[in-house]
């Protein structure tokens, strides 16, 4: 079970249950220990179909680890993860394949296949699903590039793309099969504010156009406020806060205020040093 947070405000809740319809993703008491380090210490989380949850928290706080657990890229030390009513813990890689077809994931670095062109990268999931007609593939890639505002970039290699373009291509590749859910790992990190804003607009457009459930892991507060229906603050391996953007901004909890305002204090410095 999740421990009660130190500052019991109304907006700070331990067990996270969405107010919307049946959960697309449910995480129960998820824990992960790597070596001697406890990364996740009992995460409870639900994400309803069609909603966007932003998971915020400090760097190295376990946000990306949590995200990787949701597609079975990492196995937890304890806990359960339910995707559309199926517990994915203990599934083999091949069984997870069926679950992964429902979920797209944008990696922090884009994780583009560097031996393939932009077109081949984006068409990859369709090819793997058995689509062989070059006309169909080209048309679908062109459509995705239009959504990403990257028309005419089909023949470029990943090494010649900027950081923002890599993320867009990675996003196009992850959503070309129209998954029900998209996981974004730091979609705006390392990008200038203008490109970051264009990524935020893109995420919102995808939500409206395809109605996808989204989980956005970020430490960029503008990104979180721009795209999220709800925000969860991950702190020291636990969900410390869960609520709407407005509730987060109104919170008087010192830890949340420090994070929102980008303030470090002595206690945190001591912890970092330790």
């Amino acid at each position, binding site marked *: 079970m999740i421990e009660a947070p130190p500052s019991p405000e109304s907006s700070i809740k331990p067990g996270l249950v969405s107010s919307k319809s049946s959960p697309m993703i449910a995480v129960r008491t998820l824990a992960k220990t790597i070596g001697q380090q406890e990364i996740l210490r009992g995460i409870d989380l639900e994400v309803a179909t069609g909603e966007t949850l932003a998971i915020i928290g400090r760097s190295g706080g376990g946000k990306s680890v949590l995200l990787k657990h949701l597609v079975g890229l990492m196995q937890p030390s304890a806990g359960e993860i339910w995707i559309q009513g199926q517990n994915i813990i203990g599934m083999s890689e091949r069984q997870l394949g069926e679950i992964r077809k429902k979920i797209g994931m944008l990696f922090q670095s884009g*994780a583009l296949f560097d031996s393939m062109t932009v077109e081949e990268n984006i068409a990859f999931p369709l090819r793997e699903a058995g689509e062989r007609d070059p006309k169909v593939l080209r048309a679908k890639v062109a459509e995705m590039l239009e959504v990403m505002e990257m028309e005419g970039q089909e023949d470029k290699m990943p090494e010649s793309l900027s950081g923002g373009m890599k993320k867009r291509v990675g996003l196009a590749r992850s959503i070309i099969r129209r998954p029900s859910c998209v996981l974004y790992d730091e979609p705006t990190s390392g990008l200038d504010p203008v490109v970051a804003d264009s990524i935020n607009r893109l995420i919102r457009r995808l939500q409206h156009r395809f109605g996808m459930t989204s989980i956005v892991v970020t430490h960029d507060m503008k990104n979180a406020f721009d795209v999220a229906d709800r925000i969860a603050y991950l702190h020291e391996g636990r969900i410390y806060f869960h609520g709407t953007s407005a509730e987060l901004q109104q919170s008087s909890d010192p830890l949340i205020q420090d994070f929102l305002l980008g303030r470090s204090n002595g206690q945190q410095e001591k912890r970092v040093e330790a």
Partner: protein
Amino acid sequence: MVRFFSALGAPLLSFFQYLGEVVLLTADTFRSIFTHRLRWKLFLNQIVEVGLLSQLVVVITGGFTGAVFSAQTFFQFNKLGMGSAVGAVVSVSLCRELAPVLTALMVAGRVGAAMSAEIGTMKVTEQIDALRALAVYPIDYLVVPRALAMMVSMPLLVAECIAVGITTGYFVAIFMLDINGTYYMANMVRWTRSRDIIMGLSKAFCFGILIVFISCHKGLTAREGAVGVGRATTEAVVNASLAVLVCNFFLTMFFNIIYPAGFQ
């Protein structure tokens, strides 16, 4: 005594864990070969990488090994008046030992290193995680085409190495060492049996399996960025080369029971 065994225990355990991982990878790959569709384009690409692009290395290795072996054998045998037996010695040695082992070592250096580096780079840049997230099993996509290409290419490369080695050995013997060509050929054909060739090709198949799984395993378990990939590549080449040399002894003993050496 306890300290000795505890000091011995950790490396031994890690060695057995490593062996277990390679065996599991091998089993998973063979299961995948028989139960899942083959990506023909990737397989043909790997045939080009492993087979076609290794031609030059194998031809030079086989050619100069045959030539030098022919000369050295002549220098020794000629003292005993057995110069005409050079062809038989060169041919049988190339078929049973030299061609499979030297080709395997060259392929481990050229192809094994490339496999390990490519897969390792994919691992540390999250491309393998991306494959998995896109519902593609990395063994099916990365290991199966490489393993099949190696199993097909290695026997052909060894056959080529044998042929080139025998040819250069013949030319050195006839044109540089003045051995009678008729006796040379007659002895070579008399003493070289089909079982010698089968043994060489069987060894090539086994060495191909060793190289591909050791290299792919090192790539798939690479970590810690560029340094990790470099380390994985080095370890892949060293481990594959050592495995080839060690297994060669046991394969020789085993195959000698099935295909005994000599004229029987």
